[in-house]
């Protein structure tokens, strides 16, 4: 297992390097001058563009720039063009809201999906099952941004129950759950909407399969209580595929966070990436793409590893 992990992680290095090269190429090929975006039109003629350019190191030849980027990236010393702070610091700050929302969304999604899937799997093709199927279908068809607007319109504009911006009330130090929970409800709901249908479907088919397997019949015939059968045998066995899919959901949630963070003005990683790209903040874009790639690799490896761990019948390479 250890060797397998090590090998997979080592394979990650060329991938990350490739991602860096592609991103750099994209930044170079992109139209628009980052310097011009740092200067607002009112100050035109007032701002000394050449000094700015030298300050950011954009006056050096491209290969030198690239090497400097790789070097700074590896050392974690890349500095944002706009804020002149280490990007790692910016990402570290931005990660907190994103992770809070993602973790909450996963926890809620799993908590909701499993009982629903179980209820549905126990009575296939019944009214409940049909209802669940329709609900799943609805969930994957609703555009996230539209759902968010509907929520804001009803819960903030009309009823005034929930705040529609930010992740915490102004001036709150840190992220104490007791104070920030109203801000979390709507964004989490939107994120959940995108993953619950998948989880339900997956869990349902997995449970259906488990339920028909022999060991369940055996357990039942042994006279075990229904609930015990459920918990010990069905759930545990059907959880395996579900757990593996959770790992795959994480990068998916990163995408979802872009919309949610933009609409709800949450200073998370998704918004940081978008704003960085829009303002041609090369260091931020570079760091974000490398991080996203790293996240993908890690979650892939974790998924495979957890799959292997949970199901001793599976051997890898």
């Amino acid at each position, binding site marked *: 297992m250890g060797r397998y992990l090590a090998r997979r992680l080592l394979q990650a290095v060329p991938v990350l390097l490739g991602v860096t090269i592609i991103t750099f190429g994209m930044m170079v090929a992109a139209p628009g001058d980052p310097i011009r975006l740092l200067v607002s039109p009112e100050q035109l003629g007032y*701002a000394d563009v050449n000094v700015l350019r030298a300050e950011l190191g954009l006056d050096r030849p491209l290969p030198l720039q690239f090497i400097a980027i790789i070097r700074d990236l590896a050392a974690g010393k890349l500095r944002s063009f*706009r804020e002149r702070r280490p990007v790692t610091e910016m990402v570290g700050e931005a990660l907190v809201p994103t992770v809070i929302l993602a973790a909450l969304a996963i926890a809620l999604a799993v908590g909701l999906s499993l009982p629903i899937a179980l209820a549905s799997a126990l009575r296939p093709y019944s009214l409940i099952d049909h209802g669940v199927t329709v609900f799943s279908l609805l969930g994957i068809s609703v555009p996230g941004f539209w759902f968010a607007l509907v929520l804001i319109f009803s819960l*903030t*504009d009309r009823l005034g129950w929930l*705040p*529609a911006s930010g992740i915490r009330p102004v001036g709150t130090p840190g992220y104490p759950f007791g104070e920030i929970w109203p801000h979390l409800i709507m964004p989490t709901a939107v994120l959940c909407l995108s993953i619950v249908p998948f989880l339900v479907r997956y869990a349902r088919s997995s449970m259906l399969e488990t339920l028909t397997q022999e060991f369940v019949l055996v357990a039942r015939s042994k006279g075990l209580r229904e609930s015990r059968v459920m918990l010990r045998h069905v759930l545990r066995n059907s959880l395996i595929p579900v757990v593996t899919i959770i790992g795959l959901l994480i990068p998916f949630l990163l995408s979802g966070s872009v919309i949610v963070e933009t609409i709800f*003005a949450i*200073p998370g990683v998704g918004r940081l990436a978008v704003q960085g790209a829009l303002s041609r903040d090369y260091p931020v874009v570079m760091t974000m793409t490398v991080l996203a790639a790293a996240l993908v690799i890690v979650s892939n490896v974790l998924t495979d590893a957890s799959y292997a761990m949970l199901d001793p019948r599976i051997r890898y390479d």
Partner: protein
Amino acid sequence: MKKSLVIGLVLIIALALAGTPGQAQRRNQAVIAIWGLPTRLVGSSEAVAAYVLLQVHEVLAGTDDAGRPVARLAEKWDRSPDGRVYTITLRQAKFHDGTPVTADDVKFSYEFYLHPRYPIASPSLLEIEGAQEYRQGRAPQVTGISVVDPRTVRFTLKGRYAFFFDQILGRPNYIMPRHAWEGVDVARMLEHPYARKPIGAGPFRLTEWRERESMTFQAFPDYWGGRPKVERVILRLIPEPATVMAEVRAGNIDAGQVLPDEFEGFQRNPQLQTFKVPGDVSFWFSFNHQHPFFSDVRVRRAFYYALDRELMVKTLQKGFGQVVNSPTHPSLWQYNAGLKGYAYDPARARQLLSEAGFTPGAGGILQRDGRPFRARYTFLSEKRYLDQGLMIQQFMRQVGVELTLEPLERGDFFGRFFSPANSSNIEVAGIAWFNLLLPVQFEFESNFKSTGAFSGIFQYGNPEIDGLLNQTSTAVDRGAMRTLYYRVQELILQDVPRVMTFRPDELWAVQKRVKTPPVKSLAEFFRTVNLWEVR
């Protein structure tokens, strides 16, 4: 024993009535919703940064609505008979860290702004003797600024300069503490901790800066102008206007912008007060004056007649705005209120165009020498510009001019807009202008003087305007200056270097419990935060 019990009881009751200091602090705060936060506080050229710097920093002097000098950190001054030398006495003011503001700090600050590696070039500061040499790295210091004693500093100018108070002593030349910044490499100033936690002499201290989220300011008790009555001010970043309004209604925000369609609803809301001022932003579009079509002033005037600017204000701002005939903000003394603008008169527009040699062509589009009157209208791809563009396109179509809309996103737009090599790419281009951030003289020069930055893009030059603007810096008095500025505005209207459309009103809602002084502009709103009171 009994006595101490009684005293104890009284104390407890007193405390309960007064509330603990912490509670009072939390109540004595104002939260302002803002559409963007600055990314840097030194060497910044962002509009939003200006609003933040207003709270934290202080300048030597400024000018009031009538153009008279107003003392700030400078308490009094003497001017030499030839008008070249100003001897300024500083008042007893302190920086946020308790150290006094001295003449050394003044000299240091100005040399900081004139440093060869400082990213912003200030032409007006170059009026100081020795500034040019210093900026070019040929001198170790600016000879025109001398420290007479800790409380006295002397400015020697190259010549008489009418804008000494507003462009040299005024914003954005904030006084910074020398002991905090001495020895810092100017090229890397953003990496200095004080770049993010500035020490200034302004009414508030920046105590917390949560990136892309909020900025928190605490009242500075030793501010020379008196301790601000509001203890804490928080700038909260909310990019979406709809969300701002929702939060104001919910009471989570104390002051925020309101969209025109909702303003009446807010005015009726008993828990809120509203204010409406001519906005700091005015919209305009200009032409490539080398283009054969647009070099003719009749064509440019035709544009003015073809646009129903009142309808634009009604449609896009629900009436909350004004048609604009001058680039200057109405609250300024230089503003020429007596200008009579172009009325909506499509017939006159068509007449002017035919005088310019255009005749009706295929598809209802005018043509001249076989060339149809088509042009690209380039603008920033934001909703407000797009909406205006659509209206302008429709109006121009009615008089036979076909404009193709070309929305560009930021990188593309500014890349094309600001590089001289690409300026020939522009035929018609529009943007908005943030007034009141920079001195009026600078605005005029940058926009309308043939050496100005915008003139470079649009290739406009008018010798009469140039001449007038050259005279202002040596005008005898404000009356003379005003005459010059009035004439410049007349010429801008007559010669049409650009078509000015409208100035939207700034519409704001403020919670009733926050008392704000009446203001005439948004900039003034942010300038007077230290006068707010929270009940």
